[in-house]
């Protein structure tokens, strides 16, 4: 009878149990691994043989068949090694363990029988707990990540021999270090809005962006501070809830980019892919349908610098994930769904030469429009706030005034977010003003007094489209929330009307 050992494989950000069945049959000595493993799985047989021989155990001179069940799903990764080795040792009667089904093994083997770290431990631990597997054996480097999951025994080892002697009861497990205190350490965010000086004007709108979960596009000459501002936006977003933190950590775990040896990610992610990014790198995909930048930015900020330089098709691929807050990567054999609820911050130059409005700019109006049209309408439609960022000669005007600090701004954001949370608590899938549907806008964006007249004036002057109307109301709602106001006053609408810098200019352009 074949030995059966538990392991896991990944599908999207979730893991599922893979039963590793090992059998030895009389016949020509050989190793075959079946169950739709890719090259990294197939190559395990070489590592297996070398490491078993290295620790002075016997590698059976028989026909060895290893089956990864379920056998109809493609699998990849080298983390099956440890489970295969244990299975083989059990099958060849060199080792005996009671209750093997209560254990699961994850880890890659080196030729010297060391156990190496691997990706995706967190979702595997979550799955183990769900399936009632009580003992999880992982590489030592991944212990911390695995122990984010409570209520399951996590054992971390460096060598195959240690695993064997632990399983046989020879040496009891000694916890490597105290893991608990590690979780609470929260590094201060490196970037603070205090460093941004003289940009008070735009910061007001940045706060609104963060407070209402809106998307933002900043336009400005090269070197005026767009990137500097964007990098600081995560620092004013409210801190992540534990559920959110776990979601983010899971995605990073699956992608194998978890830093700090697998502590929980508590900072909101900030991703800034370069504009030559391919569509797959952005939305996810590739050989194993891995998460893309938009998923890595989940619960955080996706910053697209020079958005006009991005491939138009690539950008348009972001539309659906932005709408649904998740992205479905479909391949013939499997379909992965990754969460992708991010805040889009984009930056671009106002015209091809970058100095629009300044003396040295000689771009014709047509060229300016053409440049701006590189971002498709539907994309711009999902961006509520468009603001100019300008270099400020603040020394001339004010001496050395410090900007407001991130923590101050975050309080404003949290204040507005709390109001929104209360407002939308009974409505599914809507958490912020930016996500309001037309029906909700009608219900919650009640215009007060003169504010309606103001909107009318704006539409007469700037020929806005009807859909822009909703945008103004949403943003005005956010400004009202920041003030704690119930209805949209003149002030809130006036500020919201300042959120379409690029659109406004279009009216004055000399083109047919």
């Amino acid at each position, binding site marked *: 009878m074949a030995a059966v050992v538990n392991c896991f494989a990944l599908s999207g950000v979730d893991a599922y149990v893979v039963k590793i069945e090992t059998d030895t049959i009389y016949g020509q000595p050989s190793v075959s691994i079946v169950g739709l493993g890719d090259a990294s799985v197939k190559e395990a047989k070489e590592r297996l043989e070398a490491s078993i021989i290295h620790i002075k155990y016997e590698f059976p001179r028989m026909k060895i068949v290893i089956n990864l069940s379920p056998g109809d799903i493609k699998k990849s990764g080298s983390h099956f090694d440890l489970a295969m080795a244990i299975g083989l040792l059990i099958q060849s009667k060199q080792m005996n363990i009671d209750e093997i089904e209560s254990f699961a093994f994850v880890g890659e083997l080196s030729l010297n029988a060391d156990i190496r770290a691997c990706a995706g431990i967190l979702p595997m631990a979550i799955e183990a707990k769900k399936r009632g597997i009580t003992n999880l054996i992982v590489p030592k480097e991944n212990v911390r990540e695995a122990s984010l999951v409570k209520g399951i025994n996590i054992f971390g080892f460096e060598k195959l021999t240690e695993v064997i002697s632990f399983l046989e009861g020879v040496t009891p497990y000694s916890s490597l270090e105290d893991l608990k205190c590690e979780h609470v350490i929260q590094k201060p965010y490196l970037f603070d809005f205090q460093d941004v000086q*003289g*940009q*008070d*004007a*735009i910061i*007001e709108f940045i706060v609104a962006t963060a407070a209402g979960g809106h998307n933002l596009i900043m*336009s*400005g000459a090269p070197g005026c501070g767009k990137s500097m501002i964007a990098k600081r936006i995560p620092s004013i977003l409210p801190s992540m809830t534990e559920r959110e933190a776990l979601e983010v950590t899971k995605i990073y775990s699956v992608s194998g980019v978890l830093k700090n040896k697998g502590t929980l990610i508590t900072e909101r992610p900030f991703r800034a892919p370069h504009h030559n990014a391919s569509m797959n790198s952005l939305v996810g995909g590739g050989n194993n349908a891995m998460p893309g930048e938009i998923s890595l930015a989940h619960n955080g900020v996706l910053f697209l610098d020079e958005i006009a330089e991005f491939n138009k098709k690539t950008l348009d691929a972001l539309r659906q994930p932005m709408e649904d807050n998740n992205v479905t990567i479909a391949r013939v054999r499997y379909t992965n769904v990754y969460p992708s609820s991010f805040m889009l911050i984009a930056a671009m130059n*106002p015209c091809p030469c970058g100095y*629009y*409005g*300044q*003396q040295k*700019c*000689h771009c*014709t*109006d*047509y*060229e300016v429009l*053409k440049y701006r049209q590189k971002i498709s309408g539907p994309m711009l439609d999902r961006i509520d706030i468009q603001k*100019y*960022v*300008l270099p*400020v*000669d*603040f020394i001339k*005007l*004010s001496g050395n*005034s410090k900007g407001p600090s991130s923590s101050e701004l975050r309080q404003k954001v949290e204040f507005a977010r709390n109001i929104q949370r209360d407002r939308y608590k009974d409505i599914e899938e809507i958490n912020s003003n930016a996500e309001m549907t037309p029906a909700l806008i009608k219900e919650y964006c009640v215009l007060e007094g003169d504010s309606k007249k*103001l909107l009318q*004036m*704006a539409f007469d*002057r700037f020929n806005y489209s009807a859909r822009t109307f909703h945008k103004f109301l949403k943003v005005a709602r956010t400004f009202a929330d920041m003030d704690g106001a119930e209805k949209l006053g*003149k*002030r809130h609408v*006036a*500020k919201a*009307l*300042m959120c379409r*810098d690029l659109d*406004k*200019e279009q009216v*004055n352009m*000399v*083109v*047919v």
Partner: protein
Amino acid sequence: MDSYYSDAVYWIWLSEINGIGPVSAKALIDKFITPQNIYKATKSELVDISGIGIATADTIFNSKSLTNAELILNKCEKLNIRVLTYGDSLYPTQVKDIKKSPIILYYRGNLIEESMGVAIVGSRRCTEYGKRLTVDAGKFLAQNNIPVISGMAKGIDGYAHTACLKADGYTIAILGCGLDICYPKEHIELMQRIIERGAVISEYPPGIKPDANHFPMRNRLISAWCKKLLVVEAGEKSGSLLTAAYAKEQNREVFAAPNSIYIRESIGTNKLIVEGAKMYLNSSQLLLDNVRKTRVNRKIENAAPSGDDLTALEKAILIKIEDSPMNLGEVLVSLKENKSDILETISIMELKGMINNVGGIFKKCR
């Protein structure tokens, strides 16, 4: 086959003969009245005309195939291109008088009786000043029912046409390529609009691509087609200077917009002024004597609010940006008021049309 068609074939035939320029063609027309007669003329009849040598007569005699001309005419028919011949009454006499004006022109759109107007030309890469000046002039001409003539190039040319069209004026674009080609490509929409509301003209049959050699010819036609020429901005070696030179030669009045001596785009125009061009100081200089049909359908002016009904903050902001335009950040720093109040006020001022936001910089509206 109507008479337009049968006539046009011979005109095209004559214009397409290699070695027969506008000058000799016109000499022939003077004698034979129609190109058809030239086609039928004997060699000795041709040689009789002064200016036509034996070689030229041979050329005419040896190229008696109408295939090419018919081909061109068919193409025109398909593309809705009309042929304007030297004999046509829509061909302005003042243009005909120019020695080297082509005997045949192709056009799309509608040519009106008095299609000659004021030409506005300038550099492709222009400054904000040039753009403003052009737009104002184009609008003014449109309001005074004066056709705006230009070359549909990027920059000044494009702005001139656009401003004129936006004010419901009549405009003519003269191109250096066949009328089935839009050069520069980005003006395809503008070209469409000009065809709807005015006309595009070219001396080149459809299919001819833009070429560096064509543009001086086109410039000569632009200067010929105008009564006054306004050069807005021109670099040291700008083609607009050539247009101005032709205009001078053709006895057209030339205006040049003065500008800073430190700006590259104004080297050419300032030089024109030195050389005798009139300095352009206000748009009424462009009025033509015989056009007195000023349209009175001016919109009710959005009069800037007088100082009385401004709030204290509005006044303060206006004073700040009056001399030197400022961006929002600078306004906020330079005024000590509450930030929210300033934002609200600026937004409302913008709506009222008191201030303007260009590239994030606030300017007082003129």
